[in-house]
């Protein structure tokens, strides 16, 4: 796939911005030993509420969820920023965001403890970011701007 300069710029900027958001969110959690997704899970709403609450109360599952969350965000963010394997990373990111959305769907009548920063009906920022990652997945840019460009070179037999 060939892109014009402006298309490439747009794609790379989008990739960097989402990567930035993921990496920061992830690292903050990794660096805070007392962070847990428990409160967030307990605050779930929508048709999967029961499932997320079950995870929050299950002492075996919760640490796994916490670990996957913090490190998942971190690795996805790192990959998007550096431009290495970001196609896979965007898939993982889509799954993570999908889970966040399902636990806190924006639907009238569901109240959450943490007040939201705007008004939404079905589409909220989580979903928008999810679709943006779908764009990154469909229009890869690592091979032009990103470590993948060097990676390919290293892997090339000499």
């Amino acid at each position, binding site marked *: 796939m060939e892109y014009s300069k402006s298309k490439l710029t747009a794609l790379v900027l989008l990739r960097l911005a989402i990567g*930035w958001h993921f990496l920061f969110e992830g690292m903050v959690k990794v660096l805070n030993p007392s962070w847990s997704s428990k409160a967030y899970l307990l605050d779930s709403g929508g048709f999967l509420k029961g499932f997320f609450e079950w995870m929050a109360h299950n002492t075996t599952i919760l640490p796994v969820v916490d670990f996957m969350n913090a490190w998942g965000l971190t690795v996805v963010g790192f990959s998007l920023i550096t431009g290495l394997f970001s196609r896979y990373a965007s898939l993982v990111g889509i799954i993570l965001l999908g889970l966040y959305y399902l636990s806190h769907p924006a639907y009238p009548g569901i109240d959450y403890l943490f007040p939201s920063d705007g008004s939404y009906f079905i589409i909220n920022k989580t979903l928008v970011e999810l679709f943006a990652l779908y764009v990154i997945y469909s229009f890869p840019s690592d091979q032009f701007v990103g470590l*993948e460009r060097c990676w390919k070179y290293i892997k090339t037999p000499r």
Partner: protein
Amino acid sequence: MNSENPENDKLKFSRRDVLAGLVSLPVLGVIGYGLMKHHESKKKLGSGLIRNIKPIIPAGIPSLVEGKTINIGMVGCGGRGGYLMKALGFVHPDRIDEFTEKANNNKYWADYLKEFNAQENLNIKITAICDVFEKNARRAIEIGANAFRNGKEGKMETAPKRYLRYHDLVAAPEVDAVIIATPDHLHVPIALEAARHGKHVYCEKPLSWTVAETFEIRNTVKETGIVFQLGHQGRQTESYQAAKSLIDQNVAGKISLIEVCTNRNDPNGAWVYDIDPEGNPDTIDWKQFIGPAPWHEFSLERFFRWRCWWDYSTGLSGDLFTHEYDALNQILKLGIPHSAMASGGIYFYKDGRTVPDVLNMTFEYPDRDLTLLYSATLSSEKNRGKVIMGHDAYIELNDTLIVNLDPKSTQYKEEIEKGILKPHEPIYSYVPGQGKIDAITTPTEKYFAGRGLLYTYRDGKAVDTTHLHLREWLNCIRLHDGTKPSCHIDQAFEEAITAHMGSISYLEGRRTYWDEVNEKII
């Protein structure tokens, strides 16, 4: 830009490729910076759900006021005396060796040693010590000489001079300031003599053993103008200071009841301490130990377990309630209650003691529309915490602080109805240095640590509260401008009178009142 043929890639690999490959890496640096900033602003770990609650927490450790070296005389070098010397930077060389060895394969001791070495040098000398038990006196001399925090082989400072009688220590010219850590019945006699010699005083809690001497020491401290600090190191506990600022912002609403408790359940916690095999009439100056107390023939139990007898002790009220009271006096400026009523008994430790092991006291503050309740047992470890009950929220206070929403709150009614705040859930929590408490070994230590009496936090780092409390006292001495330490004589007076009102009520089986006009317990 791309090519199907790897050979071509290799040939074409250029500076441009390197640039395009690495161009996004600086972003990582920026994020690293952001994380650092984020970490700094979050280090208090306070989390609030109500946007405008902002607790005011002390920033950092106040720096040391410059001035000449202060010469300290220690009177009473037992358990607490040793701890105070450590907080001043003096530990026995044998213990330093012991810590160093343990630190090699144990992270707790490695951290312990690191924390101790990180504790700033206070620019003091221990020039004199006085203890009536040979062993404690001997050890105190060795501790006082270890000014450089060395092991046995290391360099030592000139050893402090031992005085056999405190009267001589407080009069000695090489002593500028006196630290008192004797049993309760000797606090005031020693403090009085020290003050009369113009020596500054750091006196362990409780201030006094009798009501009359409480007035005497207050007058003398004021007349002589010495710098006086009572040993309630809880004054330095960060969570208490945070609680004060939250209450000042009316987070809890109108407070009607405060409950504080003591729950311990082991002989050590009930003051049945070990009897040192070195103790005998030759190694203990019994007459001096008795001091102002009624005469009793020599008794090892009484000497090592003095807290069990009114003859030397102030019981649960003076020994443990005072810590709780002083915390609340600091947070709410309670002052002396209007009345006190107490009951209890010797229900578990029927070992000849005269002080009760179960004690319940209620203190009324009609001017403030509130009751302070103290409930203690030395034979159950059911932890009941310190709870400040307001109409809008209740505050659970230990070394952590949790503000829980009351479902029937008026102040937060709207938020509750909208579902922004959930009833009974924390609306604010402050949990510094999690995990630290696990390293504490004995139940009695846990009791104190849980109350923020062993260490607190400054900028997220653990600091010995007693070190901070002593430091504040030394700073006031060096400032020499009338600045008073946080637990100065008026605070100490309120502490002692309140504790005495409770004890008298228990002993006389009646309600006691404070006559504010004539300053008398009636």
